[in-house]
């Protein structure tokens, strides 16, 4: 017979090949055993993917106008009542980083009634709101002048009796051209209409308004203070501006200023991801535990079914470590297979669900790529007990089958 120079130690690669051969001999069982891990990893990848996708959708749904709008009001002011914001509110806020434009306003209750020139002996009144506004307020609400012009700092400074009409107010007053310097009477005080606004999506209520310079309102209607500051920020800067505007308007008591700013989209996205993924991750975790138990159970049954083979390997010189390694490797391979299939299934599920919802799928590739690793860990852990059973089996009892 051939003489060898044996080391009496199996090579690691050979033990791995034995594990593969062991699984290949029962392919259907191997696939079914891996199903638990497939479901667990697929659920995990799908849940993370859908959470990331849903979070991304939040950003898509928060439109430009909402995301860049900040409004500051005097917290103590009663609805329609006088505020006490400083006259230079707009200038203070404009100096804040991230602010594109800002304008201050105050409603002028004393400007009612609103009338025009008597028609046929009648002097009709019109239901419009009169606001004192700073000149750059139009920029803050992204308003456009349809005809004429907006009053400027000079009008404000000189308290000139001029007005700009919202689009619906102009229609109500039947003024569509300012070239003839039409006049409107505010509590009997004549103001010259110098411009008409286009509809303003960002601040729709201005469509019903008549805007006059703050300087004019102070002088003629004794406007006591401003009550609202409208701010347009750069995209992404609104939450930060919102946190600073109170301090800018009232350094002694920033809490006296009510600030309405959009939520931080990144925080919102994270919160949505957290809400969506929390429950699904729990389900994924449960699936993985069930998967691990499935692998452990089937591997244990396999050990009992292969008692005779274990006894034979023992007789052929397999150490307990070799036997344990083989069974742990088999369960680890099943777990890896499950993780691989689960990761692929998870990616597919995210793509299909997003296609149905017409969403753009967003998924960190680290998750599906980590699937086989996670599966391997689960498989290896699940194989420890069956492997210990195999290794501690008496070779004599095992050979009896």
């Amino acid at each position, binding site marked *: 017979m051939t003489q*060898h120079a044996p080391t009496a130690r199996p090579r690691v690669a050979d033990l791995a090949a034995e594990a593969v051969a062991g699984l290949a001999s029962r392919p259907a069982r191997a696939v079914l055993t891996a199903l638990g891990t497939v479901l667990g990893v697929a659920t995990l990848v799908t849940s993370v993917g859908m959470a990331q996708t849903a979070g991304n959708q939040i950003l898509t749904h928060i439109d430009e106008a909402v995301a860049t709008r900040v409004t500051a009001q005097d917290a103590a002011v009663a609805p329609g009542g006088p505020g006490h914001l400083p006259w230079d509110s707009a200038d203070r806020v404009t100096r804040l980083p991230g602010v594109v434009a800002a304008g201050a306003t105050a409603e002028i209750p004393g400007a009612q009634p609103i009338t025009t020139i008597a028609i046929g002996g009648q002097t009709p009144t019109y239901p419009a709101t009169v606001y004192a506004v700073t000149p750059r307020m139009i920029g803050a609400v992204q308003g456009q002048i349809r005809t004429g012009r907006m009053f400027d700092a000079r009008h404000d400074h000189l308290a000139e009796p001029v007005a700009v009409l919202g689009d619906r107010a102009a229609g109500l007053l039947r003024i569509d051209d300012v070239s003839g310097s039409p006049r409107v009477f505010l509590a009997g005080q004549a103001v010259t209409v110098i411009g008409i606004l286009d509809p303003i999506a960002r601040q729709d209520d201005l469509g019903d308004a008549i805007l006059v310079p703050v300087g004019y309102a102070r002088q003629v209607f004794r406007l006591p203070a401003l009550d609202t500051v409208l701010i347009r920020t750069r995209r992404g800067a609104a939450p930060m501006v919102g946190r600073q505007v109170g301090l800018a308007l009232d350094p002694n008591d920033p809490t006296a200023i009510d600030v309405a700013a959009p939520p931080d989209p990144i925080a919102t996205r994270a919160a949505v991801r957290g809400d969506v993924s929390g429950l699904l991750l729990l389900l994924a975790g449960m699936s993985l535990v069930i998967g691990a138990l499935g692998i452990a159970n089937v591997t244990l049954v396999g050990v009992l079914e292969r008692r005779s083979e274990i006894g034979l390997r023992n007789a052929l010189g*397999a*150490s307990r470590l070799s036997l344990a390694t083989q069974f742990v490797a088999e369960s680890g391979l099943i777990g890896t297979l499950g993780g691989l299939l689960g990761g692929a299934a998870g990616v597919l599920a995210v793509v299909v669900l997003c296609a149905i919802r017409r969403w753009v799928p967003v998924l960190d590739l680290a998750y599906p790529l980590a699937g086989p690793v996670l599966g391997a860990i689960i498989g290896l852990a699940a194989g420890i007990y069956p492997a210990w059973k195999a290794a501690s089996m008496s070779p004599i009892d095992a050979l009896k089958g």
Partner: protein
Amino acid sequence: MTDDPVTRLRSVGRCYGSDTPVAALVDLDLTLHARDYVAITGPSGSGKSTLLNIIGLLDRPDEGSHELFGQDVTGLGERARARRRARHLGFVFQSFHLIPHRSACENVELGLLYQGIGARRRTETAEQVLGQCGLGDRLDARPTQLSGGEQQRVAIARALATAPDLLVCDEPTGNLDSRNTRRVLDLFDHLRADGLTIVVATHDPEVSERADRVVHIEDGRDRSRAVAR
């Protein structure tokens, strides 16, 4: 190899059970020298298999000592015993113990796996030994495609592939018809002639007649008288 006997058992005893112990072997001495061909006979339950298990390092005696090539292996740890099984011993079982989903060649290769031999050399050796056992044309056959005699010859080839010093056979012809029994025994004769040490536990007189020496066990004790051939 030294001049020490392949295996020497001195005053070996083995009991099973703890509440009411049953003595499987009592004060048994046995020495196997190189090239011995020894048959162990006796009725069922007499202790033949227990004796083979101790010789094959699958079991330990409760009393006495066991030497392998002059080295006391009685108290060796499991890992060291496994290494010695791989290096020195070959096993042939009554029920063949072939892995059903592997070919004859792969089954024989398994015997070489735990010697740390590479895959290519395992295959070459397995093919060579199967050819020597008359199965050169059945390399790829699964056990279910083989007759009982062929399966036992595959099992013998598996044991021989590792070039063992001692072939331990437990009822090797117990599941074979007379024609296949003779074929296996002829193979043993050839191996014996080539210098292999063989110990066979058997009920079959045809097997014991071919051995150099017969050790008869009853109630765990050696009741034999050596039969010189």
